């Protein structure tokens, strides 16, 4: 019997959430005023949780390291948000969204959580529209949908290429309303540096004011971490520069188990790396795969010619192109899930067909979409459908309407016009499915400490489908946590305010100060970025899109060595009582250097391939991920003083409502 109790309610799948809501304890409105909740992170999960808990009457303190809650990295999500509304009448349903998500996650997620997610997805759309989120609409004035990878229906709601920003601004507006009413106290430019545990319960945090350097104690009856994912362990990723694992990692060190750290999503459509100076990778929305076709040349001689500049991609004849996704996966074609598309790109590039100087790029081509749309428009307008120029011009217009902002972004970065020549793309680290282990109530293994959104591990299994991250963040914050946290807080109505002058706070603050002092006074010779880049190289080369036992073992050693070198030789300029970005970065990289090791250890433990975790030793003859039945569990790691000594716990996964079979997109 595992020590992990997922607290999944009894009863039929479809009734679990309703039944659970009916059974859990509530806090009466007068008592809510006596209860404080700390929320760290103000993205979709944190922002929506803060707003909702404040609406309910709790006293909320919200923290973010950005200068405004509106800038959390949820803002960068482009494509859309899934919901089983079935507005298109194409056969969608709660069950189908549940099914697609479990299958997309390669049967490594919890049935009950995913079903609940699918169930509340429709409420999210209603809620957001009521808040004034300007989703895309059709001419009739009703909401428009589009399709995303890994599914056969159109259930994705979107706001051009910036769905994330619009949803986040919705949550931010809801927060602002509560800040204006005094129910949320907002601490922007503050970073959480430790969780304070009193009598086994999370009772507060230690935070640093990033402007003044002041170390502060904040107490509460419960603490929610909505601090996002840890993909920046790879240095280069589509994450924001400030995204970090620090809050989650400190919680882990204080007793919260870390689940499935090796499940990382590598997004197939990002702009390729251009040089060593690169600080960040830019995503091109998955929605582009609705119309773009992915290919590389069929012949090596054409690849050579392209690399040395003597041939243009547009000059390669149709029969000399290898549309490898369409070839390998005729049913889903270019809309296979992200992990599948990424690996397929890597396979072609590893085989020597990469189309840029570094050999790490494939084409995403809109020429056929332009022709197809152009012909359609020419026909509608009664123009000559065989006039190439007319058709091309009309087609470009349509493509511009759909993806104009993305095309413009591409052109600004790469200096090539994607209407004329195919885009070049390559996979990049984009999302982490792993995170703090939580039960059905989103509580970690530390009582009173919750994790929501990307920071927890809960809903996506080994691979996340496109447009599901926004759905999960808002589901957790708006519709799940506000109920489940009440169940816990109902026992705290007589507790009264939590004092901060206790030995637990003393100890935590001392701990934080010691870490900072050490970094500031280290007086080494190398910058924080120097170490971060080296960590990123190890992670990408040995724990990236394809992993094997040898590499992972090497990674574990190398990361441990790098960590030691970091603590000996890092140089942090400036002082601690002032704005000091290098100091903040140093603390974050120190935590990545610990997490990285656990990451590799987890990947090594999992002797199978599943979703984003691909072990070269475990693949089918066709090169697809090969799951192993014995690994049908969640790995949850308990901290024991060092990453290398982490203790492995298993939460078995059961599938009663869905048949576990080979995940096929052919």
């Amino acid at each position: 019997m595992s020590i992990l109790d997922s607290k999944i309610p009894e009863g039929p799948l479809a009734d679990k959430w309703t039944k659970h809501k009916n059974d859990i304890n509530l806090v009466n409105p007068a008592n809510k005023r006596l209860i404080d909740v700390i929320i760290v992170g103000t993205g979709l999960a944190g922002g929506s949780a803060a707003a909702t808990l404040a609406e309910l009457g709790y006293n909320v303190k919200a923290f973010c390291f950005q200068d405004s809650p509106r800038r959390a990295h949820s803002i960068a999500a482009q494509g859309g948000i899934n919901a089983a509304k079935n507005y298109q009448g194409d056969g969608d349903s709660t069950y189908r969204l549940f099914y697609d998500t479990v299958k997309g996650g390669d049967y490594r997620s919890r049935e009950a959580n995913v079903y609940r997610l699918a169930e509340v997805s429709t409420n999210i759309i209603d809620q957001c529209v009521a808040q004034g989120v300007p989703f895309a609409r059709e001419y009739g004035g009703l909401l428009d949908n589009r399709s995303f990878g890994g599914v056969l229906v159109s259930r994705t709601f979107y706001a051009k290429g910036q769905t994330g920003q619009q949803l986040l601004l919705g949550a931010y507006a809801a927060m602002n309303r509560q800040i204006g009413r005094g129910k949320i106290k907002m601490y922007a430019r503050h970073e959480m540096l430790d969780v304070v545990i009193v009598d086994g319960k999370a009772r507060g945090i230690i935070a640093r004011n990033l402007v003044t350097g002041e170390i502060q104690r904040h107490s509460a009856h419960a603490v929610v971490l909505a601090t996002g994912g840890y993909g920046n362990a790879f240095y280069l990723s589509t994450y924001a520069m400030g995204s970090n694992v620090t809050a989650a990692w400190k919680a882990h060190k204080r007793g919260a188990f870390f689940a499935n750290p090796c499940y990382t999503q590598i997004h197939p459509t990002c702009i390729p790396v251009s040089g060593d100076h690169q600080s960040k990778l830019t995503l091109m929305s998955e929605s582009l795969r609705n119309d773009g076709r992915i290919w590389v040349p069929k012949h090596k001689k054409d690849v050579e010619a392209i690399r040395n500049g003597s041939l243009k991609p547009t000059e390669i004849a149709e029969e000399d192109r290898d549309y490898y996704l369409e070839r390998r996966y005729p049913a889903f074609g270019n809309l296979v899930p992200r992990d599948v598309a990424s690996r397929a790109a890597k396979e072609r590039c590893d085989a020597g067909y990469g189309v840029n100087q570094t050999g790490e790029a494939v084409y995403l081509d809109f020429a056929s979409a332009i022709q197809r749309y152009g012909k359609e428009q020419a026909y509608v307008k009664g123009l000559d459908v065989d006039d190439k120029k007319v058709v091309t011009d009309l087609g470009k217009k349509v493509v511009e309407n759909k993806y104009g902002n993305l095309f413009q972004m591409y052109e600004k970065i790469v200096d090539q016009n994607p209407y004329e020549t195919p885009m070049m793309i390559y996979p990049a680290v984009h999302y982490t499915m792993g995170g703090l282990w939580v039960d059905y109530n989103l509580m970690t293994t530390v009582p009173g400490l919750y994790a929501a959104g990307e920071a927890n591990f809960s809903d996506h299994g080994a691979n996340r489908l496109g447009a599901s991250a926004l759905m999960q963040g808002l589901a957790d914050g708006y519709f799940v946590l506000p109920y489940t946290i009440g169940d816990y807080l109902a026992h705290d109505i007589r507790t009264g305010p939590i004092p901060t002058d206790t030995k637990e706070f003393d100890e935590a603050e001392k701990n934080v100060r010691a870490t900072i002092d050490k970094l500031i006074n280290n007086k080494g010779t190398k910058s924080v970025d120097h170490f971060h880049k080296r960590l990123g190289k190890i992670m990408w080369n040995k724990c990236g899109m394809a992993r094997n036992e040898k590499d992972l073992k090497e990674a574990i050693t190398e990361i441990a060595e790098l960590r030691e070198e970091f603590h000996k030789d890092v140089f942090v300029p400036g002082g601690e009582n002032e704005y000091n970005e290098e100091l903040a970065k140093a603390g974050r990289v120190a935590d990545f250097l610990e997490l990285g090791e656990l990451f590799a250890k987890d990947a090594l433990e999992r002797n199978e391939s599943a979703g984003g975790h691909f072990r070269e030793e475990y693949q089918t003859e066709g090169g697809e991920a090969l799951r192993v039945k014995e690994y049908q569990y969640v790995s949850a790691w308990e901290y024991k003083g060092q990453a290398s000594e982490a203790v492995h716990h298993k939460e078995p996964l059961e599938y009663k409502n869905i048949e576990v079979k080979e995940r096929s997109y052919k």
Partner: protein
Amino acid sequence: MMNLTLKIWRQKNSNDKGSIVDYPVTDISPDMSFLEMLDVLNQELIEKGEEPVAFDHDCREGICGTCSLYINGRAHGPSTRITACQLHMRSFKDGDTIYIEPWRAKAFPVIKDLIVDRTSFDRIQQAGGFISVNTSGNTQDANAIPIEKENADKAFDAATCIGCGACVASCKNSSAMLFVSAKVSQFALLPQGQVEATDRVLNMVKQMDEEGFGNCTNTGACEVECPKGISLENIARMNREYLAASFKG
């Protein structure tokens, strides 16, 4: 590869007077982004044991609105419709001198070097930039009210504002009207926003005035420099909403 002279505003903290300091940088690739060029400078400074230049940045893909550099006399630099993080060094020539300053406005006090405090924007939003609906999940079906596509699109265009503050920085009056009008317009164009329209515009404008932003004189600089191309039409709409709300009392 390019060699450049950077003239950068350095200011230790909000109480320091601050001044422009010259820094040469060498071997800059035209494929670098502007912020990556600053990264290069900062790495050099750190290696010399000096303090790096503090500047705000986060997503580095033009959507979070954090970066806020006044480059060669223009908000987000010489190109239009982009943020500083999307600006690439191919926009400059070998030997160029580049001025880099923080946003300048009384309502955006400098925190350090090139970083300013834009919480005045948050306070304006808190004064009314929302629709008062609780997150019960029991609102009506999202498709219950069809919204005319033209208005939905205009509301979206207004909502694309990333709150970077380029409008304030480039306005000769440091006026925040483009920012405020974008939010007012988004809600004014949607039926959901109508109920609170009167109070919203009055309260947001009141807060804007209290924060110490200047008045709009319709120079149109904000629209030109806005990385998201927010239209001046929104300011006209806000004026109209405000006047109607004022006369309504």
